[in-house]
Protein backbone atom coordinates (compact mmCIF):
# COMPACT_ATOMS: atom_id res chain seq x y z
CA UNK A 1 0.00 0.00 0.00
CA UNK A 2 1.06 3.53 -0.64
CA UNK A 3 1.93 5.18 2.68
CA UNK A 4 -0.10 8.21 1.70
CA UNK A 5 -3.23 6.09 2.08
CA UNK A 6 -2.66 6.18 5.85
CA UNK A 7 -3.38 9.89 5.93
CA UNK A 8 -6.73 10.99 7.32
CA UNK A 9 -9.64 11.31 4.93
CA UNK A 10 -10.04 14.62 3.15
CA UNK A 11 -13.24 16.20 1.93
CA UNK A 12 -13.57 16.91 -1.75
CA UNK A 13 -13.33 20.68 -1.29
CA UNK A 14 -9.85 20.20 0.04
CA UNK A 15 -8.96 17.99 -2.88
CA UNK A 16 -10.12 20.63 -5.35
CA UNK A 17 -8.17 23.36 -3.60
CA UNK A 18 -5.14 21.12 -3.65
CA UNK A 19 -5.19 20.76 -7.39
CA UNK A 20 -5.74 24.48 -7.72
CA UNK A 21 -2.80 25.08 -5.47
CA UNK A 22 -0.74 22.76 -7.61
CA UNK A 23 -1.75 24.83 -10.61
CA UNK A 24 -0.93 28.07 -8.85
CA UNK A 25 2.50 26.73 -7.99
CA UNK A 26 3.16 26.40 -11.69
CA UNK A 27 2.03 29.88 -12.61
CA UNK A 28 5.05 31.72 -11.21
CA UNK A 29 7.33 29.28 -12.94
CA UNK A 30 5.62 29.92 -16.25
CA UNK A 31 5.51 33.68 -15.75
CA UNK A 32 9.13 33.89 -14.66
CA UNK A 33 10.08 31.66 -17.54
CA UNK A 34 8.24 33.82 -20.03
CA UNK A 35 9.60 37.07 -18.59
CA UNK A 36 13.21 36.04 -18.38
CA UNK A 37 13.40 34.22 -21.67
CA UNK A 38 14.12 37.21 -23.93
CA UNK A 39 16.74 38.58 -21.54
CA UNK A 40 18.09 35.14 -20.78
CA UNK A 41 17.94 33.52 -24.19
CA UNK A 42 21.10 35.17 -25.49
CA UNK A 43 23.16 33.43 -22.82
CA UNK A 44 21.20 30.23 -23.22
CA UNK A 45 21.72 30.12 -26.98
CA UNK A 46 25.39 30.97 -26.64
CA UNK A 47 25.81 28.07 -24.25
CA UNK A 48 23.81 25.77 -26.49
CA UNK A 49 25.88 26.65 -29.54
CA UNK A 50 29.15 26.18 -27.68
CA UNK A 51 27.99 22.74 -26.48
CA UNK A 52 27.19 21.89 -30.06
CA UNK A 53 30.58 23.14 -31.24
CA UNK A 54 32.24 21.03 -28.58
CA UNK A 55 30.23 18.01 -29.68
CA UNK A 56 31.30 18.59 -33.30
CA UNK A 57 34.89 18.94 -32.14
CA UNK A 58 34.66 15.60 -30.34
CA UNK A 59 33.30 13.91 -33.47
CA UNK A 60 36.23 15.22 -35.52
CA UNK A 61 39.00 12.73 -36.00
CA UNK A 62 42.26 14.13 -37.46
CA UNK A 63 42.94 10.86 -39.29
CA UNK A 64 39.45 10.22 -40.67
CA UNK A 65 39.09 11.26 -44.28
CA UNK A 66 35.95 12.71 -45.76
CA UNK A 67 34.41 10.47 -48.38
CA UNK A 68 35.84 10.91 -51.88
CA UNK A 69 33.97 10.36 -55.14
CA UNK A 70 34.47 9.25 -58.72
CA UNK A 71 34.60 11.64 -61.67
CA UNK A 72 31.12 10.66 -62.83
CA UNK A 73 29.63 11.60 -59.44
CA UNK A 74 30.88 15.19 -59.68
CA UNK A 75 28.36 17.99 -59.77
CA UNK A 76 29.00 19.78 -63.12
CA UNK A 77 30.86 23.03 -62.49
CA UNK A 78 27.95 25.03 -63.95
CA UNK A 79 25.81 23.60 -61.16
CA UNK A 80 28.34 24.31 -58.42
CA UNK A 81 26.62 27.13 -56.50
CA UNK A 82 28.43 30.40 -56.00
CA UNK A 83 27.62 31.91 -52.65
CA UNK A 84 29.62 35.07 -52.22
CA UNK A 85 28.65 37.79 -49.89
CA UNK A 86 29.83 40.50 -52.26
CA UNK A 87 30.35 40.99 -56.00
CA UNK A 88 34.09 41.22 -55.55
CA UNK A 89 36.12 40.92 -58.71
CA UNK A 90 39.76 40.18 -57.97
CA UNK A 91 41.19 40.78 -61.43
CA UNK A 92 42.86 44.05 -60.53
CA UNK A 93 44.64 42.49 -57.60
CA UNK A 94 45.84 39.32 -59.32
CA UNK A 95 49.12 40.76 -60.69
CA UNK A 96 50.46 41.89 -57.37
CA UNK A 97 48.94 39.07 -55.33
CA UNK A 98 50.96 37.25 -52.75
CA UNK A 99 50.03 35.43 -49.58
CA UNK A 100 51.03 37.23 -46.41
CA UNK A 101 52.06 34.89 -43.61
CA UNK A 102 52.42 36.14 -40.07
CA UNK A 103 52.15 35.16 -36.44
CA UNK A 104 53.70 32.09 -34.86
CA UNK A 105 55.84 31.04 -37.84
CA UNK A 106 59.59 30.77 -38.36
CA UNK A 107 59.50 32.26 -41.85
CA UNK A 108 56.89 35.02 -42.00
CA UNK A 109 56.57 37.12 -45.13
CA UNK A 110 55.00 37.10 -48.57
CA UNK A 111 54.61 33.90 -50.56
CA UNK A 112 53.91 33.87 -54.29
CA UNK A 113 51.45 31.51 -55.95
CA UNK A 114 54.41 29.74 -57.62
CA UNK A 115 55.97 29.04 -54.23
CA UNK A 116 52.68 27.56 -53.04
CA UNK A 117 52.35 25.55 -56.26
CA UNK A 118 55.81 24.08 -55.67
CA UNK A 119 54.29 22.04 -52.85
CA UNK A 120 52.90 18.56 -53.71
CA UNK A 121 49.61 18.96 -55.56
CA UNK A 122 46.59 17.08 -54.24
CA UNK A 123 43.37 16.62 -56.22
CA UNK A 124 40.18 15.46 -54.57
CA UNK A 125 36.49 14.97 -55.36
CA UNK A 126 34.70 15.77 -52.13
CA UNK A 127 31.42 17.06 -50.87
CA UNK A 128 30.84 20.73 -50.31
CA UNK A 129 27.99 21.10 -47.81
CA UNK A 130 26.37 24.46 -47.25
CA UNK A 131 24.84 25.58 -43.97
CA UNK A 132 21.71 26.45 -46.02
CA UNK A 133 21.05 22.75 -46.50
CA UNK A 134 22.34 21.82 -49.94
CA UNK A 135 25.32 19.72 -50.90
CA UNK A 136 27.33 19.21 -54.08
CA UNK A 137 30.38 17.16 -55.04
CA UNK A 138 33.24 19.26 -56.37
CA UNK A 139 36.72 18.74 -57.76
CA UNK A 140 39.40 20.70 -55.91
CA UNK A 141 43.16 20.77 -56.32
CA UNK A 142 45.91 22.53 -54.45
CA UNK A 143 48.47 22.15 -51.71
CA UNK A 144 47.70 20.69 -48.35
CA UNK A 145 47.49 23.51 -45.85
CA UNK A 146 49.50 21.29 -43.50
CA UNK A 147 52.38 21.21 -46.05
CA UNK A 148 52.25 24.97 -46.38
CA UNK A 149 52.23 25.46 -42.62
CA UNK A 150 55.29 23.24 -42.48
CA UNK A 151 56.95 25.28 -45.26
CA UNK A 152 56.51 28.51 -43.32
CA UNK A 153 57.60 26.85 -40.09
CA UNK A 154 54.40 27.16 -38.09
CA UNK A 155 54.90 26.70 -34.36
CA UNK A 156 53.57 23.25 -33.36
CA UNK A 157 52.17 24.84 -30.20
CA UNK A 158 49.90 27.18 -32.19
CA UNK A 159 46.18 26.64 -31.74
CA UNK A 160 44.51 28.74 -34.42
CA UNK A 161 44.80 29.93 -37.99
CA UNK A 162 43.15 33.16 -39.09
CA UNK A 163 42.62 34.11 -42.71
CA UNK A 164 41.75 37.42 -44.32
CA UNK A 165 40.35 37.78 -47.83
CA UNK A 166 40.49 40.38 -50.60
CA UNK A 167 36.70 40.77 -50.46
CA UNK A 168 36.97 41.64 -46.74
CA UNK A 169 35.71 38.21 -45.75
CA UNK A 170 37.59 36.64 -42.86
CA UNK A 171 37.48 33.49 -40.78
CA UNK A 172 39.43 31.51 -38.23
CA UNK A 173 40.04 27.83 -37.57
CA UNK A 174 41.27 25.34 -35.01
CA UNK A 175 44.73 24.09 -35.95
CA UNK A 176 43.61 20.41 -35.96
CA UNK A 177 41.23 21.05 -38.86
CA UNK A 178 43.95 22.99 -40.73
CA UNK A 179 46.31 20.03 -40.41
CA UNK A 180 43.67 17.60 -41.73
CA UNK A 181 45.08 15.91 -44.86
CA UNK A 182 42.13 17.08 -47.01
CA UNK A 183 42.32 20.74 -46.05
CA UNK A 184 43.61 22.46 -49.17
CA UNK A 185 45.04 25.78 -50.21
CA UNK A 186 43.16 25.42 -53.46
CA UNK A 187 44.09 27.09 -56.75
CA UNK A 188 42.25 24.79 -59.16
CA UNK A 189 38.70 23.56 -59.48
CA UNK A 190 37.67 21.01 -62.11
CA UNK A 191 41.19 21.12 -63.59
CA UNK A 192 41.06 24.87 -64.30
CA UNK A 193 42.65 27.76 -62.43
CA UNK A 194 40.13 29.24 -59.99
CA UNK A 195 37.71 31.62 -61.64
CA UNK A 196 36.90 34.86 -59.92
CA UNK A 197 33.52 33.50 -58.72
CA UNK A 198 35.24 30.62 -56.98
CA UNK A 199 37.85 32.71 -55.22
CA UNK A 200 40.82 33.35 -57.54
CA UNK A 201 43.69 33.21 -57.06
CA UNK A 202 43.60 31.13 -53.88
CA UNK A 203 40.91 29.75 -51.63
CA UNK A 204 40.65 27.32 -48.79
CA UNK A 205 38.73 24.10 -49.14
CA UNK A 206 37.84 22.02 -46.09
CA UNK A 207 35.54 19.04 -46.65
CA UNK A 208 35.34 18.56 -42.86
CA UNK A 209 33.63 21.91 -42.41
CA UNK A 210 30.57 23.74 -43.68
CA UNK A 211 31.00 25.77 -46.86
CA UNK A 212 31.31 29.17 -45.20
CA UNK A 213 34.58 28.00 -43.65
CA UNK A 214 36.09 27.47 -47.14
CA UNK A 215 37.09 31.11 -47.55
CA UNK A 216 37.72 32.52 -51.04
CA UNK A 217 40.24 35.18 -52.21
CA UNK A 218 42.53 34.66 -49.24
CA UNK A 219 45.54 36.98 -49.05
CA UNK A 220 46.73 36.55 -45.49
CA UNK A 221 47.24 33.73 -43.03
CA UNK A 222 48.04 34.30 -39.40
CA UNK A 223 49.04 31.49 -37.07
CA UNK A 224 48.18 32.28 -33.47
CA UNK A 225 47.52 31.04 -30.01
CA UNK A 226 44.65 33.33 -29.08
CA UNK A 227 41.72 34.37 -31.21
CA UNK A 228 40.86 38.02 -31.50
CA UNK A 229 37.39 39.40 -31.04
CA UNK A 230 36.66 39.06 -34.74
CA UNK A 231 36.41 35.35 -35.44
CA UNK A 232 34.77 35.34 -38.84
CA UNK A 233 32.38 37.26 -41.07
CA UNK A 234 29.42 34.92 -40.46
CA UNK A 235 30.69 33.61 -37.14
CA UNK A 236 30.54 37.12 -35.65
CA UNK A 237 26.90 37.32 -36.70
CA UNK A 238 25.91 34.05 -35.09
CA UNK A 239 27.05 31.08 -37.14
CA UNK A 240 28.94 28.33 -35.35
CA UNK A 241 32.65 29.14 -35.10
CA UNK A 242 33.75 25.51 -35.40
CA UNK A 243 31.46 24.69 -38.31
CA UNK A 244 32.58 21.05 -38.26
CA UNK A 245 30.57 18.45 -40.11
Amino acid at each position, binding site marked *: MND*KSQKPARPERELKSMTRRE*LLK*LTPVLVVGALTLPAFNEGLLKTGLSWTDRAAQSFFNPGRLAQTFNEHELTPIEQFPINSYSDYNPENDLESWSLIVEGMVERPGQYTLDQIKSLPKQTQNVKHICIEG*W*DVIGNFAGARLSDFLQMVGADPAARFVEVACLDDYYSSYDIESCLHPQTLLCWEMYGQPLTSEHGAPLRLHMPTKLGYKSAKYIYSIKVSNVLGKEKGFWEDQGYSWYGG*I
Partner: protein
Amino acid sequence: MATTKSGLTIDTIDFEDDGVRQTLAQEHTWLVRFTHWLNAISLVVMTMSGLQIYMAFPSFGAKIPQENFVQIPEAMRLGGWLGGALQWHLTFAWIFTLTGVAYVLYLMVSGKWRKVILRPQEFSGVWPMVRHYFLFKPKPDQLEPYNPLQKLAYTSTIIFGVVAVVTGLLLFQPTQFALPVKLLGGFAMIRVYHFAAMVGFLSFIPGHLLMVALHGWSNFYSMLTGWKREPEYLVKD
Protein backbone atom coordinates in the same frame (compact mmCIF):
# COMPACT_ATOMS: atom_id res chain seq x y z
CA MET B 1 -1.85 0.22 -5.23
CA ALA B 2 -4.70 -0.83 -7.48
CA THR B 3 -5.12 -2.91 -10.60
CA THR B 4 -6.45 -1.77 -13.94
CA LYS B 5 -9.03 -3.84 -15.79
CA SER B 6 -6.25 -4.96 -18.10
CA GLY B 7 -4.07 -6.08 -15.20
CA LEU B 8 -1.52 -3.23 -14.82
CA THR B 9 -0.76 -2.01 -11.31
CA ILE B 10 -1.07 1.68 -10.48
CA ASP B 11 -0.27 3.68 -7.32
CA THR B 12 -3.37 5.05 -5.66
CA ILE B 13 -4.45 7.09 -2.65
CA ASP B 14 -7.83 6.35 -1.03
CA PHE B 15 -9.82 8.93 0.87
CA GLU B 16 -13.33 9.47 2.20
CA ASP B 17 -15.47 12.11 0.57
CA ASP B 18 -18.69 12.72 2.58
CA GLY B 19 -18.72 9.09 3.54
CA VAL B 20 -18.02 7.87 -0.01
CA ARG B 21 -14.71 6.20 -0.65
CA GLN B 22 -12.78 7.77 -3.49
CA THR B 23 -9.55 6.78 -5.21
CA LEU B 24 -6.82 8.98 -6.66
CA ALA B 25 -4.66 7.19 -9.20
CA GLN B 26 -1.14 8.32 -9.96
CA GLU B 27 -1.04 8.61 -13.75
CA HIS B 28 2.23 10.49 -14.17
CA THR B 29 5.25 10.60 -11.90
CA TRP B 30 7.25 13.82 -11.61
CA LEU B 31 9.78 12.66 -14.20
CA VAL B 32 7.05 12.09 -16.79
CA ARG B 33 5.43 15.45 -16.10
CA PHE B 34 8.77 17.30 -16.10
CA THR B 35 10.00 15.74 -19.34
CA HIS B 36 6.55 16.12 -20.95
CA TRP B 37 6.40 19.88 -20.47
CA LEU B 38 10.06 20.56 -21.19
CA ASN B 39 9.80 18.40 -24.28
CA ALA B 40 6.61 20.16 -25.35
CA ILE B 41 8.35 23.55 -25.15
CA SER B 42 11.39 22.28 -27.04
CA LEU B 43 9.17 20.67 -29.69
CA VAL B 44 7.63 24.08 -30.41
CA VAL B 45 11.08 25.70 -30.55
CA MET B 46 12.49 22.91 -32.72
CA THR B 47 9.60 23.09 -35.17
CA MET B 48 9.60 26.87 -35.55
CA SER B 49 13.38 27.24 -35.75
CA GLY B 50 13.50 24.24 -38.08
CA LEU B 51 11.06 25.93 -40.43
CA GLN B 52 13.23 29.07 -40.41
CA ILE B 53 16.30 26.94 -41.21
CA TYR B 54 14.34 25.25 -43.98
CA MET B 55 13.58 28.63 -45.58
CA ALA B 56 17.31 29.11 -46.27
CA PHE B 57 16.89 26.39 -48.90
CA PRO B 58 13.20 25.44 -49.13
CA SER B 59 13.75 22.50 -51.42
CA PHE B 60 14.69 18.83 -51.25
CA GLY B 61 16.25 18.79 -54.70
CA ALA B 62 19.28 20.34 -56.36
CA LYS B 63 20.56 23.82 -55.57
CA ILE B 64 20.91 24.56 -59.29
CA PRO B 65 18.25 24.73 -60.61
CA GLN B 66 16.39 25.26 -57.37
CA GLU B 67 12.73 24.35 -57.18
CA ASN B 68 11.13 25.52 -53.97
CA PHE B 69 8.91 22.97 -52.28
CA VAL B 70 6.99 25.11 -49.85
CA GLN B 71 7.11 28.62 -48.37
CA ILE B 72 6.72 28.87 -44.61
CA PRO B 73 4.84 31.93 -43.28
CA GLU B 74 6.96 34.16 -41.08
CA ALA B 75 4.65 33.72 -38.08
CA MET B 76 5.56 30.04 -37.96
CA ARG B 77 9.30 30.68 -37.83
CA LEU B 78 11.70 31.42 -35.01
CA GLY B 79 15.14 32.97 -35.00
CA GLY B 80 14.77 35.73 -37.59
CA TRP B 81 17.42 34.35 -39.96
CA LEU B 82 19.33 31.14 -40.64
CA GLY B 83 22.06 31.82 -38.06
CA GLY B 84 19.60 32.81 -35.32
CA ALA B 85 17.35 29.84 -36.04
CA LEU B 86 20.31 27.44 -35.94
CA GLN B 87 21.22 28.74 -32.48
CA TRP B 88 17.71 27.95 -31.22
CA HIS B 89 17.66 24.64 -33.03
CA LEU B 90 21.09 23.46 -31.85
CA THR B 91 20.40 24.59 -28.28
CA PHE B 92 16.97 23.02 -27.89
CA ALA B 93 18.14 19.89 -29.70
CA TRP B 94 19.97 19.10 -26.46
CA ILE B 95 16.87 19.66 -24.31
CA PHE B 96 14.66 17.74 -26.73
CA THR B 97 17.08 14.81 -26.90
CA LEU B 98 17.88 14.68 -23.18
CA THR B 99 14.22 14.82 -22.09
CA GLY B 100 13.33 12.21 -24.70
CA VAL B 101 16.12 9.86 -23.64
CA ALA B 102 15.28 10.35 -19.94
CA TYR B 103 11.61 9.59 -20.61
CA VAL B 104 12.25 6.47 -22.68
CA LEU B 105 14.83 5.13 -20.21
CA TYR B 106 12.38 5.76 -17.38
CA LEU B 107 9.62 3.89 -19.21
CA MET B 108 11.92 0.94 -19.77
CA VAL B 109 13.38 0.77 -16.25
CA SER B 110 10.11 1.35 -14.38
CA GLY B 111 8.12 -1.08 -16.51
CA LYS B 112 5.62 1.71 -17.21
CA TRP B 113 6.17 1.23 -20.93
CA ARG B 114 3.28 -1.27 -20.76
CA LYS B 115 1.00 1.70 -20.12
CA VAL B 116 2.26 3.65 -23.16
CA ILE B 117 3.64 1.33 -25.83
CA LEU B 118 1.19 -0.39 -28.15
CA ARG B 119 1.91 -4.13 -28.26
CA PRO B 120 1.03 -6.35 -31.23
CA GLN B 121 -1.72 -8.13 -29.29
CA GLU B 122 -3.41 -4.73 -28.77
CA PHE B 123 -3.53 -3.79 -32.46
CA SER B 124 -7.07 -5.15 -32.70
CA GLY B 125 -8.22 -2.55 -30.17
CA VAL B 126 -7.23 0.39 -32.38
CA TRP B 127 -10.05 0.11 -34.92
CA PRO B 128 -12.93 0.13 -32.38
CA MET B 129 -11.51 3.37 -30.94
CA VAL B 130 -11.27 4.90 -34.42
CA ARG B 131 -14.90 3.89 -34.99
CA HIS B 132 -15.84 5.50 -31.70
CA TYR B 133 -14.08 8.80 -32.41
CA PHE B 134 -14.74 9.19 -36.10
CA LEU B 135 -17.94 7.21 -36.71
CA PHE B 136 -19.64 7.93 -33.37
CA LYS B 137 -19.95 4.26 -32.45
CA PRO B 138 -20.18 3.20 -28.80
CA LYS B 139 -17.03 3.68 -26.73
CA PRO B 140 -15.17 0.43 -25.96
CA ASP B 141 -14.44 -0.24 -22.28
CA GLN B 142 -11.53 1.79 -20.90
CA LEU B 143 -9.31 -0.94 -19.47
CA GLU B 144 -6.30 1.15 -18.48
CA PRO B 145 -5.13 4.78 -18.56
CA TYR B 146 -4.58 4.79 -22.33
CA ASN B 147 -6.76 3.10 -24.94
CA PRO B 148 -5.11 1.32 -27.90
CA LEU B 149 -5.51 4.31 -30.24
CA GLN B 150 -3.84 6.56 -27.68
CA LYS B 151 -1.06 4.03 -27.28
CA LEU B 152 -0.61 4.01 -31.04
CA ALA B 153 -0.31 7.80 -31.01
CA TYR B 154 2.16 7.88 -28.11
CA THR B 155 4.21 5.03 -29.55
CA SER B 156 4.38 6.91 -32.86
CA THR B 157 5.67 10.06 -31.18
CA ILE B 158 8.51 8.07 -29.65
CA ILE B 159 9.34 6.77 -33.13
CA PHE B 160 9.10 10.31 -34.60
CA GLY B 161 11.43 11.46 -31.82
CA VAL B 162 14.00 8.78 -32.59
CA VAL B 163 13.83 9.57 -36.32
CA ALA B 164 14.12 13.31 -35.64
CA VAL B 165 17.14 12.91 -33.35
CA VAL B 166 18.99 10.36 -35.49
CA THR B 167 18.46 12.22 -38.76
CA GLY B 168 19.27 15.48 -36.98
CA LEU B 169 22.58 14.06 -35.83
CA LEU B 170 23.34 12.91 -39.39
CA LEU B 171 22.53 16.37 -40.79
CA PHE B 172 24.75 17.89 -38.11
CA GLN B 173 27.70 15.56 -38.83
CA PRO B 174 27.22 14.22 -42.39
CA THR B 175 30.96 13.89 -43.04
CA GLN B 176 31.78 12.04 -39.83
CA PHE B 177 28.77 9.74 -40.35
CA ALA B 178 29.21 9.42 -44.10
CA LEU B 179 28.29 5.72 -44.21
CA PRO B 180 24.83 5.94 -42.58
CA VAL B 181 24.17 9.07 -44.64
CA LYS B 182 24.97 7.12 -47.79
CA LEU B 183 22.94 4.07 -46.72
CA LEU B 184 19.90 6.23 -46.04
CA GLY B 185 20.05 7.82 -49.47
CA GLY B 186 22.28 10.87 -49.02
CA PHE B 187 22.16 14.25 -47.34
CA ALA B 188 19.11 15.52 -49.27
CA MET B 189 17.10 12.36 -48.43
CA ILE B 190 17.94 12.72 -44.74
CA ARG B 191 16.53 16.23 -44.84
CA VAL B 192 13.33 14.63 -46.15
CA TYR B 193 13.21 12.15 -43.23
CA HIS B 194 13.97 14.92 -40.75
CA PHE B 195 11.16 17.02 -42.21
CA ALA B 196 8.85 13.98 -42.20
CA ALA B 197 9.47 13.46 -38.48
CA MET B 198 8.31 17.05 -37.93
CA VAL B 199 5.20 16.43 -40.03
CA GLY B 200 4.54 13.38 -37.84
CA PHE B 201 4.72 15.49 -34.69
CA LEU B 202 2.57 18.19 -36.27
CA SER B 203 -0.10 15.63 -37.12
CA PHE B 204 -0.04 14.32 -33.54
CA ILE B 205 -0.37 17.64 -31.74
CA PRO B 206 -3.86 18.78 -32.93
CA GLY B 207 -5.39 15.39 -32.11
CA HIS B 208 -3.63 15.36 -28.77
CA LEU B 209 -4.88 18.83 -27.81
CA LEU B 210 -8.38 18.13 -29.12
CA MET B 211 -8.62 14.95 -27.04
CA VAL B 212 -7.42 16.74 -23.91
CA ALA B 213 -10.06 19.42 -24.48
CA LEU B 214 -12.85 16.93 -25.29
CA HIS B 215 -12.16 14.71 -22.30
CA GLY B 216 -12.34 17.49 -19.80
CA TRP B 217 -9.61 18.96 -17.73
CA SER B 218 -8.94 15.91 -15.56
CA ASN B 219 -6.35 14.74 -18.10
CA PHE B 220 -4.74 18.16 -18.15
CA TYR B 221 -4.65 18.32 -14.33
CA SER B 222 -3.15 14.88 -14.16
CA MET B 223 -0.27 15.93 -16.42
CA LEU B 224 0.33 18.86 -14.05
CA THR B 225 -0.24 17.19 -10.68
CA GLY B 226 0.22 13.56 -11.62
CA TRP B 227 -3.10 12.36 -10.15
CA LYS B 228 -6.57 11.57 -11.47
CA ARG B 229 -9.68 11.07 -9.33
CA GLU B 230 -11.75 7.90 -9.70
CA PRO B 231 -10.50 6.76 -13.08
CA GLU B 232 -12.89 4.36 -14.80
CA TYR B 233 -10.23 1.83 -15.67
CA LEU B 234 -9.53 0.62 -12.11
CA VAL B 235 -10.91 -2.69 -10.86
CA LYS B 236 -13.28 -1.98 -7.95
CA ASP B 237 -12.65 -4.15 -4.93
